[in-house]
């Protein structure tokens, strides 16, 4: 899949609410896929990526409350402490909302490292809650999903942007 570094000037069609819901649902399914071994340590947090995408691109539609609800659902699905993912996602969404104007000026490729930083913050919060709960440090591999998430960001956000692309046949008028 080829992706271009989108300039800000491109005018996108409005996003349907159903598409936001659909993308979040699919992200949960991707998060819950039973993967094993190396794939499991590298598997990025698709729900976090989707929340970040919508917070940056549709800050009026998706916000901290969306992040909170998604976090609770993932907590149930992952059998983790109730509220752990919710807390991390809320703070990630907050950071994304604060910087959404700045982030949307950058192209998709230049956004990636900044998204990586936000993902890292989220994982760090989850690590803190885990440590407070009495766990041991799970090892440096714990942060690998942030890196794969960063690498995946350009593809992922092009994919989410695809349905909003202006139709080329409408241009000829």
């Amino acid at each position: 899949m080829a992706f271009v570094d989108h300039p800000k000037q491109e005018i996108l069609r409005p996003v349907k609410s159903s598409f936001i819901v659909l993308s979040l649902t699919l992200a949960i399914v991707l998060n819950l896929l039973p993967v094993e071994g190396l794939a499991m340590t590298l598997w990025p947090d698709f729900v976090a990526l989707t929340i970040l995408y919508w917070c940056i691109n549709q800050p009026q539609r998706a916000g901290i409350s969306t992040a909170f609800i998604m976090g609770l659902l993932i907590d149930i699905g992952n059998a983790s402490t109730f509220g752990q993912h919710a807390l991390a996602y809320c703070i990630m969404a907050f950071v994304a909302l604060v910087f959404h104007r700045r982030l949307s000026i950058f192209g998709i490729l230049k956004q990636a490292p900044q998204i990586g930083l936000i993902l890292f913050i989220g994982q760090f919060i989850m690590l803190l809650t885990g440590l407070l709960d009495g766990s041991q440090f799970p090892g440096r591999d714990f942060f690998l999903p942030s890196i794969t998430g960063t690498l995946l960001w350009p593809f992922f956000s092009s994919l989410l942007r695809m349905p909003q692309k202006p139709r080329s046949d409408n241009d000829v008028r």
Partner: protein
Amino acid sequence: METAPRFFRHGPSLLARLVFFVMLSLTLMAVDTRFKYVAEVRHVLSAVIYPLQKLATVPIAIYDNVSEFFSSHHLADENAELLQQKLFDQGQLQRLQALEAENVHLRKLLDASERVEGKAVMAEILHIPRDPFNRKVTLDKGSQSGIQPGQAVVDDAGVVGQITRNYPWVSEVTLITDKDHSVPVQVLRNGLRSVVSGTGKEATLELRYMAGNTDIQEGDTLVTSGIDGVYPPGLPVAVVSKIERNPAYVFARVTCTPVAGVANNRQLLILSMLPPVPEIPAEVIELKPNNKKREKVGIR
């Protein structure tokens, strides 16, 4: 629908919303770990997420079916192998039945209470969370199939864990490797009793507070002792893999490897609840407040 365009409508400020939701999630975490009050909320959300969990296993099911289809020429071999295994198991079973009858007879002679054999429910692993902080798995049977918290879960090799939470269609198993989980065990070789605790790391258990001169060797098999009233006695739990006896410390460091593993198979057996343990003798009851305190510490 709305009078003012969406662009002009602002709720509470971003920071206020953040503070509200952060406080809410912190409260939820505290309530969930300490008081277990949020069961209803959990049940509702689990009903939402259950179809998605099911959907997530579809690719694996398709993969299994396809690989089964292409490997059907192995079936004859597999069948022969299974028949042989069955013959072998049958022989063992006949011996077991004889032993069981003898055991019942001897127990009657000794006037001891009979051991009740439980039934088991087969369940499949629905999801193995990627959360490194707690060792849990989700099974595809829940309270609709009569699964209750406290039931022991085993695989073909030994003890896997214990049901700790049940939803209508799914249930959560805390594995024996979880940092908050302990199993009372006995060394098969000499009957020494102890408690094996999880470490939170994969495939590592430890026997805590074993004196340096305890009669325990590397390679010893640990089986459940059954004194907890949760795990039926005699199920294999772990094998002692490493013992460090340092004269500078009072206790030896005994590391064990669990014999069962959720990584190896997708089907697990949920054993039925054991009959309630007999009443605690009178002199132990005085110690009860102390015990309760310890339990609370354990939950944390």
